[in-house]
């Protein structure tokens, strides 16, 4: 089962549509509710990251009986320091920024917390690829 959605950078009004569509599919596949919730949070966060930071992106989702695999590929500025973006503290700071209504923080630690595997690669001025996997049961 494969799905693909394009995500537009800068359009916050549409952010979350792709995640909601996938979430509905997960529910129809009878995946454990607690797992759906974690996947949904990770997926939404990743989708919003593209909207907030990139020019455009694609979200691909592959589901089989063992796992849910999500791949987010964006065209954008890329991440300069991935290690720093992965720090918990970094996320807390960006939370405060978000509360003030500025661009969303990367939320990467939060994504990582909600999936089993996370791979990230980024090239400055080209874009970022984020791969997430959740194993079922």
């Amino acid at each position, binding site marked *: 089962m494969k799905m693909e959605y394009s995500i537009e950078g800068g359009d916050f009004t549409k952010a*979350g549509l792709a995640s909601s569509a996938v979430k509905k599919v997960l*529910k129809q*596949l009878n995946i454990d509710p607690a797992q759906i919730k974690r996947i949904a949070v990770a997926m939404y*966060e990743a989708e*919003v990251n593209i909207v907030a930071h990139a020019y455009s992106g694609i979200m691909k989702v592959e589901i089989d*009986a063992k796992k849910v695999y999500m791949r987010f590929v964006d065209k954008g500025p890329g991440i300069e320091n991935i290690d720093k973006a992965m720090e918990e503290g970094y996320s807390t700071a960006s939370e405060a920024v978000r509360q003030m209504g500025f661009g969303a923080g990367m939320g990467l630690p939060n994504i990582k917390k909600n999936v089993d595997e996370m791979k990230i690669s980024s090239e400055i001025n080209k874009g970022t690829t984020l791969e997430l996997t959740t194993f079922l049961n």
Partner: protein
Amino acid sequence: MNEPTFHHALKILEEVCTGCVHCTVVCPTEALRVRNGKAILNENRCIDCGECMNVCPVNAIIVEQNDIAEIFPYKARVALVSSIFIGQFPRHYQTRKIYSGMLEQGFTHVHESEHGAGILIEQINQYIAQNSQNKPIISSFCPAIVRLIQVRFPSLVENIMLLKAPLDLAALAFKKELIEKGYKEEEIGIFYVTPCAAKIAAIKSPVGEEKSVINGVVNMNELYNKVYSTLKKEQYSSCIIPEKEQLKSEEMGWSLTGGEAAYIQGRCLSIDGLNNVIEFLEGIENGKITNFDFIEVRACDQSCAGGILTVANRFLTRERLDERIAKYHHDKSEGKIFDNKTIENHGRYIRDHISINSIEPRSMLKLDDNMEAALKKMSRIKKILSYLPGIDCAACGSPTCRTLAEDVVQGTAHTSDCIFIQTSLNVPPNEEIRAETIWGKDRFRKLL
């Protein structure tokens, strides 16, 4: 497919239904289909919200009715009635006259169902403090919402507050009081005057409880008619007019939008109307909406003032209750308040019985219990969808193109039920038979 596992109170009158599909389109859990010219309800998906009943142009959807005569086998016949009921009547009818009108119907006791909210407030605040890992705590007040979450948002089931609604607390306290006064338990009948179908379903097959303490229900619109004609004819002189109003001000508004959230500490929000609630719950499920401590969610616009069994305009009901609350504050300053002590007297007992058991998700949207099979079905759905026009006209009897595709893989419909597929296939004349299986033979006769 599945055995119905819970009671639901909405019924479709097959003789009246014209198969117009209005109801299928508005159902928030996609529980309705039109087959053979009649609406069919998937009982396991139905959450008794009443959206279908609101849109049916021919009133083919009704709420099951209990005969009011069912109260008479009991010696103590207690009416538990939402304060919303008082708001159904024109403003010049005093609450105590309305109470008297109710006694005239055969009840021996009349109490408002919001009693107990006072104790609940303190308990909800404690509950939120103790369950911070499940924030936001979602109110369990509206049974249609509890069921919506079970069916459509199973991952939020653990956020539902596991405390009873005031109605159940009031029922416990008044029953206990009657037992202390010497009634045997089987002599006491507690009847809830309900503004909606969801409460009926919740009483007949409670979620998170074995059995309800409430013995039966009376539909609010039915009782309204009876009481109103009694009031009109001034036939209540023989009864003992009950004492003054007994609810506290925080209890009077409990069934209105904002009634709960106003008394809960922390960051709270009240949301009413099913579509608003669905949008909000989506946001919570995505992690898009965060940092709330408590959300009050009600299926009806203006909460229970907008229940499907109410009679009065919901805004006028709200106005009347707001007025009642203001008057309470005035009376209080003049020292004229009569408080009902039953709840306080049984406070300990209520607190001991305030919890409900855990609530289970009921993922009714699943295509199959087996995930491999579900995946196969999902792939077929995708394929079928690519042939369908995607305009969701519902002429096939399923609410959307997607649900038609789902029904096809579940074996309950055919791709050629889609009228666009029929035209593009240039379906030969004998295929009219297929149209008949959706619209029924009679429909075409009627139209000619």
